């Protein structure tokens, strides 16, 4: 819709230009006119083709409709299309049916779900706080909504950077939960995820290859130093809170003297703090503290008990500190150097903070720097990530290490796309739409005889499907196959409680998942994955030819073996079998002598094939 609106505006502009000087129009329309999808897509292809001409190569031709459909569905929904839909799409005479398909898929709720689980992997697969895995469902739920509402990437980022609250209730807390609010971890992950920069090398020494200094890493960490991570046992389910160090604790340098604290809180002057007297962090954890530290069992904490409690609190990560100190590596037990927050990207604009600002002021400030249009890394990192996920290769590899000195492939394309993405105010669906409308996205794989695979984006790369894409594809192909041993009897995915469905998928992706920031070249299958597809009883139950399985129905509806093969290939690989494949399979059926058994084996082979597990 937006796309068409833009086209309309362009037309209006063109006709209006006859009557008005151009500069007025720029002012009038710049605010909400996003760069046109098809124009940007063609400009990308023009830039790429220029380079291919120079290199004297001809990129591969566009893929056929079946392949395009499979690619687009896996990328946007993670599922395979039912055979009827495939046939309809292939037979449709509409000229812009691919563009329309992209728009249609982007509007499906499954788009948000698939990409929310992608981002969940980006954040949680690197978690240093293992208990944070319980944060995945709520994060994915929250992220699904953001993506399906097409909230700008800058706003999503802002929420992730400034989140507070209960980790079971606020999906936005994911990043801080994943690292227990430890400032150095957050300062490593924020540049990696949002800017494509590995700043963490500068934790202990100046960055070895990029221009950043050790101080700059710690200046970034200083934005997060007052963010806290606290266990909360008050409800029926244990949870955690991401919060801010309160001002009083911050004034005390967060190492309150037991005596000072006692003096402040002990209103009835009986030399101990009771539950009524407790305030702040002590109040929040009072019952827990009593259980552990109330030696004389008077349900109060005296100086000695309070000292023990505070000493233990100091051992815990996530307690927050008033200010950030860069450790002195030669003298690790010393306090180190006081570091004020500052943002490391030259030219990036954002507020400067006076000394001693509170947690949220700090985090809002850093969020402004990160998402500012004056900070080119923000758009580049996102564009690079999505491009890489869609085309199997980024402009830099790995995608989260773009650094200043790292080689960039086709930088002119990255710059163009990142610039326009920023112009759209970080419109995520615009970016998907634009990339998927390029010829670059729609190319065939490089034939085995050519050297095209050495020229980035001149041919498509076969890429390994992520765990949730494999899971959803299997479901598309054979129906709900459950997980080993559990939930096996539940036939209907929709009837499952969301939490159960989530666990079922999580159990599967535990075996098939991988960190999505890993370059494709470094990915390989695992033995448990192969064993699962080969032998698992739950999947095997779904490839039986007898009974109410998809295969059973397919075989009964298609008495002719060729027709049945066509249908089976459409269901599993979204294409018809080649003449060769038909021959191999027909002779296999003949040799086996048992139609049902032979088709079970063929389905098994298709599900275990490289192609099934790849985007082609």
């Amino acid at each position, binding site marked *: 819709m937006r796309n068409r609106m833009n086209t309309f505006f362009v037309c209006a502009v063109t006709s209006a230009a006859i009557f008005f000087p151009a500069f007025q129009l720029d002012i009038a329309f710049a605010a909400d006119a996003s760069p046109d999808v098809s124009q940007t897509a063609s400009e990308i292809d023009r830039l790429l083709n220029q380079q291919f001409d120079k290199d004297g190569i001809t990129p591969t031709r566009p893929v056929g409709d079946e392949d395009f459909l499979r690619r687009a569905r896996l990328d946007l929904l993670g599922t395979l299309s039912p055979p009827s839909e495939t046939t309809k799409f292939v037979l449709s005479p509409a000229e812009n049916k691919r563009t329309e398909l992209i728009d249609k898929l982007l509007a499906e709720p499954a788009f948000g779900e698939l990409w929310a689980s992608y981002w969940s992997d980006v954040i949680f697969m690197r978690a240093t706080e293992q208990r944070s895995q319980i944060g995945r469902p709520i994060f994915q739920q929250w992220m699904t909504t953001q993506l399906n509402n097409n909230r700008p990437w800058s706003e999503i980022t802002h929420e992730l950077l400034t989140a507070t609250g209960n980790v079971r209730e606020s999906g936005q807390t994911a990043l801080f939960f994943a690292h227990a609010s430890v400032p150095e971890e957050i300062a490593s992950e924020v540049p990696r995820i949002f800017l494509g920069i590995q700043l963490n090398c500068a934790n202990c020494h100046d960055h070895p290859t990029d221009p950043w200094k050790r101080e700059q890493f710690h200046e970034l960490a200083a934005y997060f130093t007052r963010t806290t991570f606290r266990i909360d046992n008050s409800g029926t389910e244990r949870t955690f809170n991401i919060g801010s160090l309160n001002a009083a604790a911050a004034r005390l340098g967060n190492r309150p003297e037991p005596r000072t604290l006692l003096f402040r809180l002990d209103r009835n002057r009986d030399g101990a703090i009771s539950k009524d007297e407790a305030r702040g962090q002590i109040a929040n954890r009072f019952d827990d503290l009593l259980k552990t530290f109330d*030696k004389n069992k008077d349900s109060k904490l005296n100086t000695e008990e309070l000292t023990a409690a505070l000493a233990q609190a100091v051992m815990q990560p996530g307690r927050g500190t008033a200010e950030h100190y860069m450790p002195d590596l030669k003298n690790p037990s010393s306090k180190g150097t006081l570091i004020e927050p500052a943002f490391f990207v030259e030219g990036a604009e954002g507020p400067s903070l006076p000394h001693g600002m509170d947690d949220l002021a700090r985090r809002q400030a850093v969020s402004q720097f990160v998402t500012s249009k004056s900070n080119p890394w923000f758009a580049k990192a996102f564009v690079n990530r999505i491009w890489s996920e869609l085309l199997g290769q980024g402009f830099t590899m790995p995608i989260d290490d773009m650094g200043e000195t790292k080689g960039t492939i086709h930088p002119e394309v990255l710059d163009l796309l990142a610039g326009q993405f920023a112009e759209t105010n970080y419109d995520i669906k615009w970016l998907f739409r634009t990339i998927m409308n390029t010829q670059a996205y729609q190319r065939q794989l490089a034939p085995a005889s050519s050297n095209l695979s050495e020229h980035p984006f001149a041919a498509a790369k076969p890429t390994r499907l992520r765990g949730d894409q494999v899971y959803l594809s299997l479901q598309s192909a054979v129906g709900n196959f459950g997980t080993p041993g559990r939930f096996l009897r539940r036939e209907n995915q929709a009837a499952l409680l969301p939490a159960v469905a989530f666990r079922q998928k999580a159990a599967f992706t535990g075996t098939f998942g991988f960190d999505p920031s890993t370059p494709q070249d470094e990915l390989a299958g695992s033995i448990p994955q192969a064993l699962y597809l080969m032998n698992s009883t739950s999947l095997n139950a779904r490839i039986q030819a007898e009974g109410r399985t998809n295969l059973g129905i397919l075989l009964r509806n298609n008495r002719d073996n060729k027709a049945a093969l066509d249908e089976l290939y459409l269901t599993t690989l979204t294409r018809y079998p080649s003449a060769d494949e038909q021959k191999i399979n027909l002779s296999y059926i003949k040799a086996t002598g048992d139609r049902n058994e032979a088709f079970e084996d063929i389905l098994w082979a298709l599900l275990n094939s*490289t192609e099934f597990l790849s985007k082609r």
Partner: protein
Amino acid sequence: MTTYTSEHIQFSGPRVTRRRFIQTASASGTAIGALSFREQMAVQAEELRKQGRSMILLWMSGGPSQLETFDPKPNHKNSGDTKAISTSVPGIQIAHDWPNMAQVMNDVAVIRSMTNKEGNHQRATYQMHTGYVPTGSVKHPSFGSLIAQQLANQEADLPSVVSIGRTVGAGFLGVNYEPFVVDRPGEMPQNISIPDGQRRLERRLNLLQNLEGSFGSQGAEQAVQGHQQLYSKAAKFVFSNDTQCFDLADEPQQLRDQYGDSAFGRGCLLARRLIERGVTFVEVQKNGWDTHDTVFERVSELASEVDVASAALITDLKNRGLLDRTLVVWAGEFGRTPQVNARGGRDHFPRAFNCWLAGGGVRGGQTIGSTTEDGSAVKDRPVTVPDLLQSISHSLKIDSAHENMSPQGRPLKVVDGGEVVQELFS
């Protein structure tokens, strides 16, 4: 020299197949090409020496209390209900819940002066397993995977790293060294038994191979190749007679009783069977050591399984002549506070804790380092995590200075810093 001889004997033993001999010989042959005979002999000796070295890690998840295990403080009030008992080695006393371990103390070296800074379960577990503290940007390989990288026979049917219980993975070393996780020792691992029999699976694999050609020729040659390698490895695994070792039924009942009728006991027995069949690293986990309350009762219960099984493992390995080439390490992520808390428990305490080693050339019957009277600090000979890992490397004869390149292009040593605890081997 002793090691060499014992390896040599082991080499002609019944468990080393002719096939493996040929592989070893030819692997050395190709690697050494133009070397002189003397040099060739040296290289082969090195090969033989490494061959068959392996490690079993008995992992006490949660952080075992040093006072209730191998560093009792019978004369201090901090000891609570725990008494000390004598062992087969005069002068060495351990906590009263460990009578079987007391019997095998001749083969065990206890380090009482482990010291570390990480008091958080996840971070300390990661650090003890990898030698590095966790960072979001690098997934460090676990030590088992690093050992396998240097020692494992890549042609073996069984995975080179097996863990009985979930553990830290191979990180950036990748799938070849990823631990194969066994959830229930004594039962066949998931998806290892073939639903419709071996013949049918062979037929299916054949069909798969015939059908893979088309995708391979359409530009996915590398992906198809990788996939086929993986499937032949997986197929070799499920077709191998070695998978029978996951089923403990063919062990004599008497021996199974010695290990004890517990998951941990079965895990230890399985570990021995895996090591026997050439697996390089096996981790056996026992959960429940996070004893913030009722530490005395809970350790008694835990020890009733762990004491029996660990001692049985050492004895069994020794009886089979496997102990010299198998290093057994018992450890958890940290120790516990010497002072008993209000709930009769002990809290996290990384400052001073203990672990023990047996086999793999370690001189048993000794304690290394000590803690103060009240157990609150290391008194002498502090041993850090890198020191422990250097010592393990020394025992297994792996190169701890070997550098692996992280995905960010940063070289990471197998062990960063630390020194071999020489007393272990002298």
